[in-house]
């Protein structure tokens, strides 16, 4: 900036400073991220409509299916994801205050909590598979139709959600690399900010998934 500092705004061509500065528009980044999040909301939203319709049609089968899920493991996973949202929000707040080390430590905590969530989820799925409760297994086909739909939706929706947690973990690792490269800084937080928005949305979706699958029995 220094050669131009003496120039008045009238003599300084608008593009002269823009040519030197790297293009960065945090507001556009954020609006774009929110538009993407809306498509995610509608993606899960359609699955929630399917769930709601079959819940009204097969209320008792859904209740008995729900009783077979481990309520306490589900609650533990909810708390793990809520805590990971806290560490994610704190990581962004730390980066805004230029506290890089704290931010990276909090991102690491978020990542580990995300992996813990996936671990418990994998354990739950494995447990159900061991009891021959997976789509079109012999035991499943002998169950009432409503329960088959319940488990179909359970695997589809928690599976799609787990996929989002995996993508979120990838975004967190990318954010840590970009912090290390100095491309995410206190004055350039868009990437970590958007990672946070994505992570919180995935958390919000689980907040709704948890009672619908685990607590309706």
């Amino acid at each position, binding site marked *: 900036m220094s050669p131009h500092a003496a120039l008045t705004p009238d003599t300084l061509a608008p593009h002269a400073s823009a040519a030197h500065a790297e293009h960065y528009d945090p507001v556009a980044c954020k609006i774009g991220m929110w538009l993407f999040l809306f498509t995610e909301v509608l993606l899960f939203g359609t699955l929630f*409509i399917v769930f709601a319709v079959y819940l009204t049609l097969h209320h008792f089968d859904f209740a008995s299916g729900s009783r077979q899920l481990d309520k306490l493991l589900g609650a533990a996973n909810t708390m793990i994801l*809520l805590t990971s949202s806290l560490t*994610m*929000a704190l990581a962004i*707040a730390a980066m805004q205050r230029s506290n890089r080390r704290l931010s990276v430590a909090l991102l690491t905590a978020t990542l580990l909590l995300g992996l813990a969530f996936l671990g418990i989820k994998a354990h739950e799925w494995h447990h159900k598979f061991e009891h021959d409760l997976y789509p079109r297994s012999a035991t499943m086909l002998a169950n009432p139709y409503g329960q088959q739909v319940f488990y179909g939706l359970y695997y589809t929706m928690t599976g799609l959600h787990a996929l989002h947690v995996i993508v979120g973990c990838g975004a967190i690792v990318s954010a840590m690399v970009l912090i290390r490269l100095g491309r995410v800084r206190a004055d350039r937080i868009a990437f970590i900010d958007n990672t946070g928005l994505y992570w919180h949305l995935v958390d919000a979706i689980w907040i709704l998934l948890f009672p619908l699958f685990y607590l309706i029995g």
Partner: protein
Amino acid sequence: MAAQHEKTHPPVPYSLYFKVWIALILLTVLTVSVSYANMQQARILTALMIAAVKILLVVLYFMHIRFERLLYTYMIIVVIVTYGIFVSLTFSDYLYR
């Protein structure tokens, strides 16, 4: 120059995030304990209402909507209305056939 370096939102105090987190954990404990109570029909409605409060807390504070310009709130309202149309059309079909 001021417009170019516009901040997307001011830093939120750390303590506020901890308060929101405590509220979310307490609501989770509440929704699990309530689910053990014997109350048939109200069960799903109660669970959904608690979940709605939790999602509101996440969106308002963790996703900063409370501190952002109103544009984001308007965008979210448009999505909720759009989704509401999908839900009402689907149920007007399924419940009355």
